[in-house]
C-alpha cells in the first residue's frame, strides 16, 4: 500500500485543470445560420471524431419540411470526419440540415443547423 502511494500522488497531479472545448460538429459549410447570396452546391459537415459511414446520415429540408438534397450522403474516404451531401440549385429560403452520425466509439449524435439563401436583387 505504502509503496504505491507516490504513484497515486503522481496520478492526481497529472490531472490538468485546463479545459478543451470539443464541439461535436466542428465546422459546417455553409456555416450555421449563414445567409448566402448563391445556392451552395453541397453541405459539408466536419466532426471531431471519425464517423461510421454506414450509420451517418444527413438531410436538407426546406421550410415546408420537404427533403431537397440529392440523397447522396457520403463520409469522405480521405477524411473520415467529414460528411457531405450534394444539393440541386436551390431557390431563396431557409433550409435546415439535420444529421445523425455514429462515431467509431459507438455513440450516436443527432443535431441540426440552418442556413438561408437570400433572394436575388
Amino acid at each position: 500500500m505504502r509503496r504505491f502511494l507516490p504513484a497515486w500522488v503522481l496520478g492526481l497531479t497529472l490531472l490538468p485543470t485546463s479545459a478543451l472545448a470539443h464541439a461535436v460538429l466542428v465546422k459546417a459549410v455553409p456555416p450555421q445560420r449563414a445567409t448566402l447570396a448563391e445556392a451552395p452546391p453541397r453541405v459539408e459537415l466536419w466532426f471531431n471524431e471519425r464517423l461510421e459511414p454506414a450509420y451517418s446520415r444527413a438531410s436538407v429540408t426546406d421550410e415546408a419540411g420537404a427533403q431537397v438534397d440529392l440523397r447522396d450522403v457520403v463520409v469522405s474516404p480521405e477524411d473520415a470526419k467529414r460528411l457531405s451531401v450534394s444539393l440541386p440549385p436551390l431557390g431563396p429560403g431557409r433550409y435546415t440540415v439535420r444529421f445523425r452520425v455514429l462515431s467509431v466509439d459507438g455513440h450516436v449524435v443527432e443535431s441540426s443547423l440552418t442556413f438561408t439563401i437570400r433572394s436575388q436583387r
Partner: protein
Amino acid sequence: MYALGLVARWVHLTSSIFLVGASAMIVIAGPSDRSTARRWEHRILSSARGLAVAALASGLVVLAVQTALFEGRVAAALEVSAIGRVLVETQTGRVWLVRFGLLVLLAAFLVLRLSVDRRADWRAVRGEGVLLGAAALVPIAAAGHAAAVDPDTARAIAFDGLHVLVAGVWVGGLLPLALLLRTAATIEGADARPYAVLAARRFSRLALGAMVVLAVTGALLATIHVGSVAGFVGTSYGRLLLAKLVLLGLVLLLAAVNRSVLLARLAGDGPTVGRPAMRRLSGFVVAEGLLALAILAVVAALSVTPPARHEAPVWPFGLRLSIAALEGATAEATRTLVGSQVAVLGLVAMIAGVILRTWRLPLVALALVALGAGAGLALPPLAIDAYPTTYLRPSVPYQAASIASGAALYRESCAACHGSKGAGDGLAGLPLPRPPADLRAPHTAQHTAGDLFWWLTNGIPAAGMPGFGARFTEEQRWDLINFLRALSAGYGARGMGPTVEPDRRWLVAPDFTFAVGPTPPRALKEYRGRVVLLVLYHLPGARPRMSQLAGREGTLAALGVEVIAVPTDAAPDAIRRLGAEPRVLFPIVTEGAAAIVTAYRLFAASPHAEFLIDRQGYIRAIAQSRGEAAELETLLGQIQELNQEKTPAEAPPEEHVH
C-alpha cells in the same frame, strides 16, 4: 432497452474479465499434486466454462442492443440483416466479431479438457487459456471511448487495453484466490495449505504491480476523457468516475489490511498454523471481489456515457478557486503565497513521515496541521463566486456574425441601462439598487463566459439586473456574450497603434466567413500561418489609400501578406466602384461585409482602419486614418517583423477564452 444494454454490458465485461483472472490465478498458483489443490483447479475451470457461456450470451445481447441503437429502432435488435450490417460495416461490429471468435475458441478449449498430466503440458494448456482470455478481452478497448480519441488514437487504445488486461488479472483473480484460501482453511483441505499460502503471496505481489499500472493508465485515461476539474465534478461521466474511485479506495483499504496484517500471519508451517487468518483473509478477499463487481457495474455505465470532455459541465459549488482573483489585490496575494509555502512545508513533512520510521507520528501530525493551516490561509482569497454554468463553453464561436447579432440585441435590450457604449451609464440604470456594470472593464478575466451566461439567463436580483433566459434563445445569449467579449477587448485595445509590440498577443481577431463575388466562401481562420492585412475602407474618402495599396500589390504579395478589403458600407457592387485603375488584385469582400464591419469597428472606430493580424490569428497593430495616402514603409516594416517573429507554442486563439 437502456437498462438491458447496461446489464448486458456489465455481465459481459465481468465474465470476460473474470475469465482472464481465473485462468491467470491457476497459472499464478502453479501445478500441484495435492488432491485439494487439484479439486480447486477443476472447480475454477468448470466455473470458467460457465463464465465463457455467460460472456458469449451477454455478448449477443450487447450486439443486439447496439444494433437497435445504431439503426435507431428497437425492432432492429432482432433482425439478422441489421445485425449483419453492424458486424461488417462498423468498427464496433468488427471488434465484436474478433472478440466473439476468440471467446468461442476459448470456450471450446475449456470444454475439451485437454490432458495435463505432464508438467510441460500443464504449462502450455493453462498458459494458452490465459492468452486466449486476454486476447478476447483486450480488443474491447478498440470499440470504446478510446477508439474515438483524436489525435493519438493508438496510444489511447493501448492505455485502455493495458488497463482492462491488468484489471482482469487482478480483479478476476480475487474470487478464485478466496475459494482456494477457504478450501485450504478447512480440516479436509489441510494438504493444500502451503500451496494456498504460496499462491496468496504471489498474487499479492502481482496485485501491487497491477495497482500501480491501473493507477497510471487510469490517470492518463482520465486526462484524455475528462481533462478538467469541472468535467470531474460536473458531468455524469466525471461523477461515475468519482464513484469508481471511491469504490477503488475501499478495495485498496482492504488490500492494504490483507497485505500488511493477514498475509504476515500466514507464516509458519504445520497444518494448523494460520488457519483463522486464512479464513479471515478469504473473507476479506471475497469482499474485495464484491466491490470489484460494483466497480465493473460503474465501468459498464461509463462505457455508455459520453466522456466528460464532450459534455457541458454543471458546476455543483457556489465557489471556485482561481488565481485571477488575486489580480490587483496585493494583501491577498501575499496571504496566498504564505499559505502555499506553509502547505509545501506540510507536504515535505508528510513525505518525511512516510519514509522515516522513527518520527512518523509527530511528523504526520505536523504535516496535517501545516497542510490544514496552509489551505486555510491560501485558499479563501482565491475563491470566486461560481454558478452551475461557470464552466460551460460557448456553443457559438467567437465570430463576426455572432458579434454583430449580439450588438443588435444589445442595442435593443441592454443599452438602456448599461449605456450605448457599455460604460454602465444608461439613464434607465440610475434608479437600480446597484449601478449597472461597466461592461468594458478589464475585470472580465475573473469571469468565465459561463458566468456571464448565468447572469444573462437568470439576472442578478440584488442588483436589479433582470434575467433574459425567457426572452433570448441560448444562441442569442451566446451572441451577446461574444459581443461583450469583443466590446471589452476593443476597450482594452484603445492604446494599440500602427506598430507591432513584440510578443504582445492578446487581441483575438474574431473569425469571419466572407465571399468575393461568386467564389466559394472562405474563413479568416483558413489564413492561419500567414500575416493578414484586414482593411476597412470607405469610398470616396479612402480612394487614395486603396490606390496606393493596389499599386504596391506586388510588394505585399512578395512579403506573403494576404490583404482582405472590406467596404464599410457593405456595398454589393464594391468591386465595380473601386474602378479599373489601378487594378485591385486582393479580395474585396462582397458577402458578410456588414458583420465584419460591426465587429471590427469595436476595435477601431475611424473611417478607415487597417488591422495587421499575425500568423496565429491575433491582431497586433491597428492603423486608423481617414483613408489618405501615407508612406507604406512603416506597414511593410511591421509585416516583416511579424514574419520574422518566432511562432510561439501558445494555444491558438479559439482556446483562449475568458
